[in-house]
């Protein structure tokens, strides 16, 4: 008899990462807790909080999701995807910016929305949902500026130096955008139960999370065409995260949050990405067996 917690711990160790996981059956509340209350750096997972805050403000009539915003090429937040990687002027709706932020983790789109919602707006939204340990203290621009500053003149290359990594403020939950695995599954469960937004806006949030393109993390653990995976990843040097909801055709739905730190500072570590799916699957299998 292999206890799921032992298997999760072993899978993290085998992949060379330290991992924290919380998984909950959205309807019964049964849970798997492998470090669920450990403070973690969210990185781009915080875009989920921003997405929910945006839709709450839309529901409250504070903004119109179809409103057009300008995104001039100068002064865009840097990033490898979406608007952040584009060269020419762009004009699009708030909700399409939210799509890019969610589907490809577009940093420029996220800061465009943050300029509208504000860090306070994001923190008010998470506080209203009772996420007491979740807090945004940086825009994505300021988060990366901090990394650049801490990395020093050698830039990205220095991010494989353990001594540099140890001093990156972005990797310290006390000084970076932060949460816990339990807070994130609570947020996802609220979105899926239509407690975070109106049903109409909740559906919009769920649609966007289902359009995320990355196949290498949580989705990799569920190689089933009839299982729906929706989620949001987050990454920084040595940090690989994803939070999401797994829906089975029998109606079972599970919110899972996995946050990892890799020992190896390499940027490309397929095993460290895949273990997010491996452990999410072990947890979901255990929740389904407990039914």
């Amino acid at each position, binding site marked *: 008899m292999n206890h799921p917690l032992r298997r999760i711990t072993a899978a993290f160790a085998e992949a060379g990462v330290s991992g924290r996981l919380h998984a909950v059956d959205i309807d019964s509340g049964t849970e798997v807790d492998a470090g669920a209350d450990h403070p973690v750096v969210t990185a781009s997972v915080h875009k989920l909080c921003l997405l929910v805050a945006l839709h709450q403000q839309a529901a409250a009539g504070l903004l119109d999701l179809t409103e057009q915003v300008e995104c001039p090429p100068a002064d865009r937040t840097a990033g490898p995807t979406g608007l952040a990687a584009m060269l020419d002027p762009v004009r699009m709706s708030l909700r399409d910016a939210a799509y890019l932020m969610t589907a490809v983790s577009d940093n420029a789109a996220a800061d465009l929305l943050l300029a509208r919602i504000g860090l306070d707006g994001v923190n008010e939204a998470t506080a209203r949902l009772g996420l007491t340990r979740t807090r945004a203290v940086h825009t994505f621009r300021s988060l990366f500026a901090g990394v650049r500053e801490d990395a020093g003149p050698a830039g990205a290359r220095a991010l494989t130096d353990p001594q540099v990594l*140890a001093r990156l403020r972005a990797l310290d939950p006390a000084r970076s955008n932060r949460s816990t695995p339990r807070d994130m599954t609570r947020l996802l469960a609220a979105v899926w139960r239509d407690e975070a937004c109106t049903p109409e806006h909740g559906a919009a949030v769920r649609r966007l999370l289902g359009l995320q393109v990355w196949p290498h993390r949580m989705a990799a653990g569920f190689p089933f065409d009839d299982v729906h995976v929706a989620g949001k990843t987050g990454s920084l040097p040595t940090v690989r995260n994803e939070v999401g909801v797994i829906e089975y055709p029998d109606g079972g739905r599970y919110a899972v949050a996995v946050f990892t*730190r890799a020992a190896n500072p390499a*940027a490309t570590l397929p095993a460290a990405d895949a273990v997010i799916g491996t452990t999410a699957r072990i947890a979901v299998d255990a929740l389904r067996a407990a039914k």
Partner: protein
Amino acid sequence: MDLIRHLQCFVAVAEERHFGRAAELLGMAQPPLSQRIQRLERELGVRLFERTSRQVTITAAGTMLLEDARLLLARADALAATARRIRDGESGLLRAALPPDLAGEAIAAILAAFRQHHPGVELELHELSTAEQLTRFTSRELDVGLVRHPCDIAGLELGPVLRRELGVLLPREAPAASLEEVPLAALTGYGLVLFPRAEAPALHDDVLNTCARGGYTPAAVRQGSGPGFVRGLVLSANAVAFAPRDSGSAHSPGPHADIVWRPLAGAPLAWRHSVAWPRGRGDAAVGAFAEATTRTLWNTAAVTADVPARPLHLRPAAEYWL
């Protein structure tokens, strides 16, 4: 009420028998001194001084309390001094760890350098693997250690990274043993004796990836870390092993031994170490151990500064950008 501070006022007034002189001695004004004495009298429920317009005299009750007050102040001073010594690294206990594969001479040199500068600190030295050190840092059972990278450094502060380049141990009769420097590809056909993957999965994978990229895919990977066991497999099992030049006599056989050590061409493999301690807990003794260890390893010929990192091509899934 800050009892120690108030007792200092009591003793000063008792000794000077004058509020003005006592205040001057304490570096404060007279009115707050009078207020403190009054507050202390209220707190203790005892009248300590008789005050007339011209003079101050200690009461019988005050005299009875004076000796206890002096004793308490002396203990408070001792406590502060001990704390200062511990903070400044002159005294106390330091729980430190070094990895098992360090040469005996290096360990002796580290201990000697530390004791020379901090003779008052009791050093409790443990032989611990990196994984064991990280566990003890988390449970607050270890103050400082020498860890091998890569490892999970969350919550740690680190000293500079030191690189111990690895060479290869191979049977004397192996063709590659005749080379001055051995390219990884020349090891083709041999098995590899490597530490168990569970000890450090990230490093284990890194070594095998580097070997494969360098043209050497071991015929078999055998688990082993003890020097005797490694030598046995190299001698009898058509295998090679990687070891730093300075990893102790067991790994550095003499000129007529059956096993020879050769540098690897291009120095593709290395053990990388740094001193580590829990973030925010680096006191003077920790600093001294870090300094002694780093300096001693620096002075060991086989240690170099970490090489500049290779180019880093971030892929879009990395999500961050500098």
